[in-house]
């Protein structure tokens, strides 16, 4: 039986190997009810493997993945009663119309809200009367989005859901996500569109080579990463060699640029000994965080997930 008091998503030491290739390595992650979590990672990082393992489409090599307390591999039918999934590449049955596909998927899902379906069809400017083979990639993706959202499932799992959508439809999709979030639906979203993740998600989890290298709120991740400090000064350059948390110091013609991790207090005290005429401190954008974690040369803090 599904336990609605159990977390909507829980990975417990979930590992998936494809022969010698590591798809996912000892992933432990929990998503609370109503939370929106973004899954980030470069191609081949294991995002799709993560989602497909959760949904029971792939068998974990070890560990387990649960949906509302139910193992997705052992009890897929019961678990799927509370999930809607949007794949990144939605292939359609070429002989069925968009409307037929929506009807079929809604019925097979155990029911849907027809009024909301019609509203979504209108919002996404989707023509359901055409045969599947005639739809463009963007329109195929709209079928997947509408089919998932119209069920109002308590858990939405999405793998690159807005791929193929034009910018206007991407905005519409993000509005729908915010609506779902406001309605209390839990969302697990894998995306390359960082602005989408930043705009919608409460937390992000970063995967690299099948390993969860970091997760937390975006604010927490920023805290862990270095802030960029730029300043102009007069006179001799400040001595910053031994200042804790300071790295990458560049000095050029009275201009200073560096990164500081942790509290900026020691840096500010060091700079106070110099005549600083202007100073600016900037947090890393999600894109910069993304690049930091994806940098191949960086050490991977494996097993830091909790």
């Amino acid at each position, binding site marked *: 039986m599904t336990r609605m008091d159990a977390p909507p998503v829980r990975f417990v030491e979930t590992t998936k190997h494809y022969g010698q290739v590591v798809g996912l390595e000892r992933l432990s992650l929990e998503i609370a009810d109503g939370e929106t979590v973004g899954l980030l990672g470069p191609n081949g990082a294991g995002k799709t493997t993560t989602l*497909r393992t959760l949904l*029971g*489409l*792939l*068998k974990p090599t070890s560990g387990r993945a649960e949906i509302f307390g139910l193992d997705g591999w052992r009890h*897929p*039918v019961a678990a*799927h*009663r509370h*999930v809607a*999934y949007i*794949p990144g*590449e*939605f*292939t359609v*049955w*070429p*002989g*069925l*119309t968009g*409307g*037929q596909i929506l*009807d*079929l*998927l809604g*019925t*097979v*899902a*155990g029911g849907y809200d027809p009024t909301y379906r019609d509203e979504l069809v209108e919002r996404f400017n989707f023509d359901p*009367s*055409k*045969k599947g*083979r*005639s739809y463009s990639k963007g329109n195929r993706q709209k079928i*997947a989005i509408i*089919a998932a959202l119209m069920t109002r499932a308590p858990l939405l*799992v999405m793998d690159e859901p807005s791929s193929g959508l034009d910018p206007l439809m991407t905005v519409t999709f993000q509005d729908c996500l915010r609506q779902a979030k406001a309605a209390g639906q839990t969302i697990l979203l894998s995306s390359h569109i960082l602005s989408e993740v930043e705009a919608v998600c409460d937390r992000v989890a970063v995967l690299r080579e099948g390993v969860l290298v970091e997760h937390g709120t975006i604010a927490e991740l920023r805290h862990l*990463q*270095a802030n*960029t400090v730029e300043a102009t000064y007069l006179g001799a*350059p400040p001595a*910053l*060699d031994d200042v804790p948390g300071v*790295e*990458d*110091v*560049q*000095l*050029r*013609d009275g201009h200073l640029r560096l*990164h500081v991790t942790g509290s900026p207090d020691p840096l500010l005290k060091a700079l106070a000994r110099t005549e600083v005429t202007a100073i600016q401190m900037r947090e*890393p954008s999600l894109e*910069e*965080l993304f*690049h*930091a974690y994806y*940098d191949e*040369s*960086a*050490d991977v803090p494996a097993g830091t997930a909790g």
Partner: protein
Amino acid sequence: MATTIRRTPTRPDVAPPVASDAAPPAAEPCPPVGVWWRAYRHHLRLLRNAAIAWIAGVSIVSTGVVATFEDRIGTEAEMQALEAMEDIPALEALSGRYVEIATVEGFVLSRWGMLFSILVVVWAMLASVRVLRGAEEAGHVEPLRSGTITSRGLLTSALAALFTTHLALAVVIGLSHSAAGMDVATSWALGGAAGLLAASFATTGALASQLVASRRRAVVIVGCFLGVMLGLRVLAAATATPEWVWWTTPFGWIGFLHEVDQARPAVFAALVALLVGLVGAALALAHRDVHTGVLGRRSHRVRPARAVRTQAGLAARLASGSAGTWGTVVVLVVLVFGLLARDLAQAAAEFPTQTELTKEMFGVVIDTTAGIAALAFYFGALLMAALAAGQAVDIREEEATWRVEHLLVRPVDRTRWLVTRALTSVALLALIGVVSGIAAWAATAATGDAITFTDGLLAGINIVPLGVLVLGVGIAVVGLAPRRTTALAYGFVVAAFVLDFAGPFLDPPDWVLQLSPFRHVAAVPAVDMNVGAALVMLAVGAVAAAIGMLVFRRRDLQEA
């Protein structure tokens, strides 16, 4: 002047420096001939494996017919009986044109020529549609077309690759038949004609691929073309038909390859002219938008669209497409044989040697209408088996394209999905069996020498267990080796058929022949249905399917 004090590689906003202001080296342009050559090799790679299998299979069987001729037709009486068959049009309708049938050359061209030709052109057409329309449908053409090769360059490179395989077929047939003892000139005439016939029908596939925008519709077009050409060939053999009708179809031309007809130059001229005409037509139509056909798209709007709300409804919708096509072919084969049954049976009754030969080849005594109907159902069984293999391939296709994911991420059990698909296919196989049985009764009734309705029905039902067996094996492959489903499912059917049809020529131990399920399909309505064998086939099919389902439930979904 910049001073770098410390640097770590993990900082978020540090982009790698651009070290040089030199322009990147320009790519060496490839000459058009080089591009075309690469496209040709690409197409040849796509065709290679299937071509090797088909050429080897067809050549081995055909060479076996040559090599065993003298063992089969040993006595003077048998020779005379064979010669007497030359005046029986009904026999010519189903095999080759009967000329000098008591010689190995005449025997091969007459008795084997028609089936040989059909096997060759089916391969040629399907291969052509696959590498031309199938590749375009799958999106493999854009990367090539976005390069420097033109649409016509791409088509000619594909045709050249196809023709290379046909040339290989011609050479293998010429060499193997002359080595097996057939007259050298006739061997090479047969090989050359087979190669040109294959090239012509492959180009028909290429032409159909320009006309319509989907592989399935292209296959329907070439299938219809094949049906019309075969129909004309059957008509040409009818007693009252004028001689020129033979020249309306390439299958008729092949009948004039016998040396005594002195018509080989005309046959080759006709084949070359057809080939040139078709290539010209295909090239003329090739300069078109990608992903379209010259005939344009049919309206994709369906009003009102019939609802498909359950997975059973979806299964029926998906399975009925190919089953409908194959089922129509089964029924047509039975109808044609049924309409000719009376004449054929009367002819066969006068020639015990012919009857004996047919019994050895097909396991059917054809001196009665029921015997001819049983022969029809022998071919019906082959088509039924191919249909069943196609159903397994269709099931796999749902997984390979990840369409099944749309269902399995919803509250749909894997096993239930597969059982639903399998049962739908079984129901369609049974329906086709019943309809073909009724067709056999109706066709023979139209000639005034009807088999009973019950016999017709049983004959149709009799071929269903073979279909179920093949479907079960196919589902086992879907579970165990999903990426090999097409090769193994169809390979099983071809291997079983070749073993049953050509195996006796090679005199293997009896238990080897018994491995073919075709050997256990009773010649109903000529003999009683072998209920025991039918039940065993059903049971084996069910067990194989159960194994496939069990494995499918426990394994990852696997894309193509």
